[in-house]
């Protein structure tokens, strides 16, 4: 199986990417895990209880849980792992995934107060331990964990299946805090597989973990994760039978041929992500809502997904993609589309804004990070706006980090952007656009929107939350600080010999229940 880029780490507490997550899901297991459809089902925990107000969740671990080296796995192991993730001295980029737990945010962020600037590591450690006394996660006994949340979070259960919530083996971590995961001997987990070897940039090998509670359900004896980045090489290896699964590296340039030659192997799966154009609402005509709407309405999204991207992407007329359950239905289906492509109306809006037939419209620039794919989409949109609205735009591309810097500092007019949800709830998209939000690069601000987001965050009542988020999304799509283009998909190739694999929305590829015929 190929997973692409070399993992930066296999410490689930600090990792941020998918290549890491593919390996970690084999080596570790959270309190809950996800089934094929993405629902949280018991993992290391046998069952759980939620308090009436939704703020306290109690997990009961299975009997006789063990680490891959045979040590017993207790409730304290989970609590210690979460606590250590929040340690400012560990500096985990994903520590904020734990902020739902009471006290977590302060434990992690107290250092940003200037008075800690010149503090020694010992002083920080002491303050951290002091704050940790009020940490919302507690081991009641060896098998019971009680978690008090800051506010009700209905998606907290699925979060405990996420890698930031995996437990790590304390003695190994403490013996070698910076490099325990670089040595197979000390990479001790509690998942269906255990570490055999990791050769950087080459491959990671894992084998069945006999100490896993569900070992009887694990069919594969061994998995080799290849770390090859070059797409055409990866595709050739699959065609040659050297790879059984390509999670990363299906050659998108050859999609047409691959679809024809491998109809059963090539799988297009939905992804919880949005490809959009970000508008800087402080630049010239973009401050006018009508201009933003006109730009959004005059893009032929169908042409982009069928002629350019070709991987089954879904044209987007909303912020939140499909796939998030709401009651018995789907958040997207319940919300519907918020606008349509309508060139006549776009022209009219543009005229009302003072630019009939695009006359007098200043020349704006579309910024994208250097990549052939983004360039082709930008060229198509440039052409569409010219034909449909009579306005001219320039294109410019920047190297990745430079592009991110331009976006963050607001040094752009229109920029290509993308967002992949962290967890299966509309909030992972909605809370991005609050006033001065850390990822809100559009400079857009709307008091009503902020209020709705706050309401949704405070409430434990799904009906109230969902309603507030629908209303918020409606405002956003009317104000249009971002132009949705399409919702992402994930393209993988899986040999017909492999069965029982799963890759639900936002999750890494899980081979726990997979079988192979060779």
């Amino acid at each position, binding site marked *: 199986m190929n997973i692409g880029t*070399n993992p*930066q780490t296999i410490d689930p507490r600090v990792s941020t990417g998918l290549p890491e997550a593919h390996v970690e899901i084999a080596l570790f297991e959270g309190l809950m895990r996800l089934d094929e459809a993405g629902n949280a089902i018991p993992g290391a925990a046998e069952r759980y209880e939620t308090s009436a107000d939704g703020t306290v969740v109690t997990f009961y671990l299975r009997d006789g849980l063990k680490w891959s080296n045979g040590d017993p796995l207790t409730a304290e192991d989970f609590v210690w792992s979460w606590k250590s993730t929040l340690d400012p001295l560990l*500096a985990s980029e994903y520590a904020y995934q734990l902020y739902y737990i009471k006290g977590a945010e302060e434990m992690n962020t107290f250092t940003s107060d200037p008075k800690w600037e010149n503090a020694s590591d010992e002083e920080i450690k002491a303050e951290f331990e002091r704050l940790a006394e009020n940490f919302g996660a507690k081991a009641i006994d060896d098998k019971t964990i009680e978690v008090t949340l800051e506010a009700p979070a209905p998606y907290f259960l699925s979060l405990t299946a996420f890698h930031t919530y995996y437990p790590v083996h304390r003695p190994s971590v403490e013996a070698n805090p*910076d*490099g325990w995961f670089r040595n197979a001997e000390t990479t001790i987990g509690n998942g269906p597989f255990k570490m055999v070897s990791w*050769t950087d*940039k080459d491959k990671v090998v894992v084998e069945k973990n006999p100490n896993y509670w569900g070992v009887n359900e694990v069919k594969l004896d061994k998995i080799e994760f290849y770390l090859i980045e070059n797409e055409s090489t990866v595709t050739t290896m699959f065609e040659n039978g050297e790879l059984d699964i390509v999670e990363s590296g299906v050659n998108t340039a050859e999609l047409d041929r691959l679809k024809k030659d491998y109809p059963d192997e090539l799988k297009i799966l939905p992804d919880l992500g949005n490809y959009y154009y970000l508008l800087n609402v402080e630049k010239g005509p973009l401050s006018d809502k009508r201009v933003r709407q006109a730009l959004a309405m005059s893009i032929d999204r169908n042409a982009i997904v069928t002629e350019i991207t070709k991987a089954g992407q879904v044209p987007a007329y909303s912020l939140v993609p499909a796939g998030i359950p709401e009651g018995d239905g789907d958040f997207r289906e319940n919300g519907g589309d918020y606008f349509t492509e309508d060139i006549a109306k776009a022209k009219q809006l543009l005229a009302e804004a003072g630019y009939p037939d695009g006359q007098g419209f200043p020349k704006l620039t579309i910024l994208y990070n250097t990549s052939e794919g983004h360039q082709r989409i930008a060229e198509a949109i440039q052409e569409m706006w010219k034909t449909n609205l009579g306005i001219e735009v320039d294109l410019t591309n920047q190297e990745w*980090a430079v592009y991110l810097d331009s976006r963050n500092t607001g040094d752009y007019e229109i920029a290509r952007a993308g967002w992949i949800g962290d967890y299966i709830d509309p909030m992972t998209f909605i809370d991005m656009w609050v006033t001065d939000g850390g990822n809100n690069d559009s400079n857009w601000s709307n008091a009503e929107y902020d209020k709705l987001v706050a309401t949704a965050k405070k409430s434990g009542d799904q009906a109230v939350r969902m309603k507030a988020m629908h209303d918020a999304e409606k405002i956003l799509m009317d104000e249009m600080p971002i132009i949705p283009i399409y919702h992402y998909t994930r393209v993988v190739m899986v040999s017909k010999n492999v069965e029982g694999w799963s890759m639900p929305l936002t999750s890494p590829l899980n081979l726990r229940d997979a079988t192979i015929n060779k």
Partner: protein
Amino acid sequence: MARYLMQRIVTMFVVAFVVVTATFFLMRALPGGPFSSERNVPEAILKNLERRYNLDKPLHEQYIDYVKGVIVWDLGPSFKYKGLTVNDVINRGFPVSAKLGGISLLVSIVIGIPLGIAGAMKHNSVGDRTISGLAILTAAAPSFVIAGVLQYVFAYKLRWFPSATWGGGQLRYMVLPVLALSSYNLAWIVKLTRSSMLEVINQDYIRTARAKGLREIVIVYRHMIKNAMVPVVASLAPMTASILTGSFIVENVFGIPGIGREFVQSITNRDYTVTLGMTVFFCLLLVGFTLLADIALAIIDPRVRLEKEG
């Protein structure tokens, strides 16, 4: 001779120091940092990260710390690869790249020089033109094209070799990447040897040797080849360095865990310490090889003296 060597070695370290300083400040002048991501890290976490990696200190202090580290060959931790130091990255990647590069260079020399000589000896024959034509074609084709063609023909169609991965350096895994990497240098050596031979063939001393009645084989070996090798040897030093730094495309196509792509990727990643460490390492390597080539030249070419003029 010893004094000259000392001078060269001192210069080598001065050059390395200048390169470290320039790279350090240039890298920092680039927009973005090692923790930039489309998903912005919350401000407080960013502060924790900067503290952990000592990026919160004033720039000049960071610079002094870094130079101190380089002197004892401690190149610092990588920002991207948790739990790895730059020394680890070099120690792991360099042997692989050196093996791949060394064998490629050997292949280029062992095949390239005889072909070049043969071409020159049978100047303008069909054989000569075929060799020159192929050499020009190979030199003109970018290495990823050659790598792709090799993969398609020998791995996918004929199935003689695996299409990629290093396989711990086993021979059958190495064949295709070695061929892909040596192709350009091979072509270059062929052309260089050939033109240099042609120049030597027309020299007066060759005519003199013939007039003395020396046997043709002695003329070719002792007088022609030895003299024709001077420019070829001189070009080996930059070639060695370029094969190490330039192997990143071949390493990428074949998924080889070498050092070439670390260098290129670290710049995109803003992995400051890795970029700096690699720059210093390659700089020392390049200057070192140039020195070796100069010594080799002095041995084969009596006109070259390893002393300062005057």
